[in-house]
């Protein structure tokens, strides 16, 4: 007998899915909510601090949740000790200040919080981030913002390779240099590199935009220079100002990289046609 779960009791397995998914819109005037149902009501002016030195990553994440449930809208974490998987899965508005460095997969899967990290971060910081802001005051490791879907991810220093790999939205800003293969398989979103960019920038990108203030070592397959518009310049000026950053030679002199869109119908091509493209 198949395992029955709570979802079966709620009748969630009876719907027959067919055709394209399309939800009917609800009545847009029904009620005005600005946070997710079930999110904790917090006040940015209510502040709490805790020391993470003797806590495991799971205990740290539970501690943040506990403080949120008590209405704290500003939380300060001291001594994070470069632990991995910290400050993940926060689906709430929150100001989180981390006084130190994080290890791998810090701030992953977040939806809403504003996080400032006063140290460095390891691999895959803010992986799969959905919304909010994450600011790193020093350097970041590789796969920074992997598969990010939304929000602003800012590193004031340098970042490693494969930044924004498979990114599906959001904005990644780097104040310094970036490693090889940044924007690999990028699908949408914006990447701003104020310093130099490494090899194979934007390799196999499907869509999205990369702005570079320094030199580009070389471009990847199907990444091509695009034309900078007035709207791009306005957006860049505004965004960089938010984080106290400036393009070294002005935003108008930044290089814009977009998808050449030769790979869009890649699956439909014959082998000979694929060879022509690549």
């Amino acid at each position, binding site marked *: 007998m198949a395992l029955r779960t709570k979802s079966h009791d709620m009748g969630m397995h009876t719907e027959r899915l067919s055709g394209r998914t399309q939800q009917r819109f609800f009545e*847009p005037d029904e009620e005005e909510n600005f946070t*997710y149902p079930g999110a904790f009501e917090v006040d940015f002016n209510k502040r709490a601090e805790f020391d993470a030195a003797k806590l495991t990553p799971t205990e740290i994440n539970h501690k943040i949740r506990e403080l949120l449930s008590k209405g704290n809208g500003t939380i300060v974490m001291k001594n994070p000790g470069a632990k991995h998987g910290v400050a993940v899965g926060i689906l709430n508005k929150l100001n989180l200040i981390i006084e130190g460095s994080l290890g791998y997969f810090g701030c992953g899967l977040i939806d809403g919080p504003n996080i400032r990290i006063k140290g460095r971060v390891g691999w895959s910081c803010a992986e799969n981030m959905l919304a909010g802001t994450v600011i790193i005051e020093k350097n970041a490791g590789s796969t920074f913002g992997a598969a990010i879907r*939304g929000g602003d991810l800012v590193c004031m220093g340098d970042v490693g390779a494969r930044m924004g790999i498979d990114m599906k*939205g959001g904005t990644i800003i780097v104040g310094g240099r970036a490693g090889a293969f940044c924007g690999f398989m990028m699908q949408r979103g914006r990447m701003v590199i104020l310093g130099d960019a490494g090899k194979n920038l934007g390799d196999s990108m499907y869509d999205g935009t990369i702005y570079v203030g320094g030199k580009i070592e070389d*471009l990847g397959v199907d990444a*091509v220079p695009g034309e900078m518009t007035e709207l791009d310049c306005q*957006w860049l000026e505004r*965004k960089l100002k938010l984080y106290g950053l400036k393009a070294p030679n002005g935003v108008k002199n930044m290089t814009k990289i*977009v998808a050449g869109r030769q790979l869009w119908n890649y699956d439909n091509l014959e082998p000979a046609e694929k060879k022509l493209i690549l």
Partner: protein
Amino acid sequence: MAKPIGAKPTAPKGGKPKEDVNKFLKSPSGLDSAREKEIGQHIGYRYDVNLVPDYTRLTPFLKKYLEIMGWDDLNWLEDVHMGYEEGRAAVFDRNINGWVTVPKNIKLPDNQQDRDMIARELLIKFQMSKRHPMVDLNKAYRKF
């Protein structure tokens, strides 16, 4: 296989030609190129995913939302645009992985920037609604 800087760009020069904002409402299939006609399928998004928002067009609802969340700009909503599915205006909700159709009684502005602002507002209202499908999923699968 890398392409050197200075290689001939394949992106359109001089900006894209101005497209009819109602293109996908008038012709839901939206098949343009020979390749699209050959395979009978539209290639790519039905809106410009790279269109950055014009902040002079923010609605009062969106301004209030940004203030509550403590953000200085549209944040994740910069990636939300009004799309077009099966001849109807719609907005994609990543939380249900599906399109949410815009009610027929909402009059669509004549430009994509204002349409995008409406899409952002409607999406917030939908996602934060107690009737959103995620509410039931949360009840069914929440672990802690």
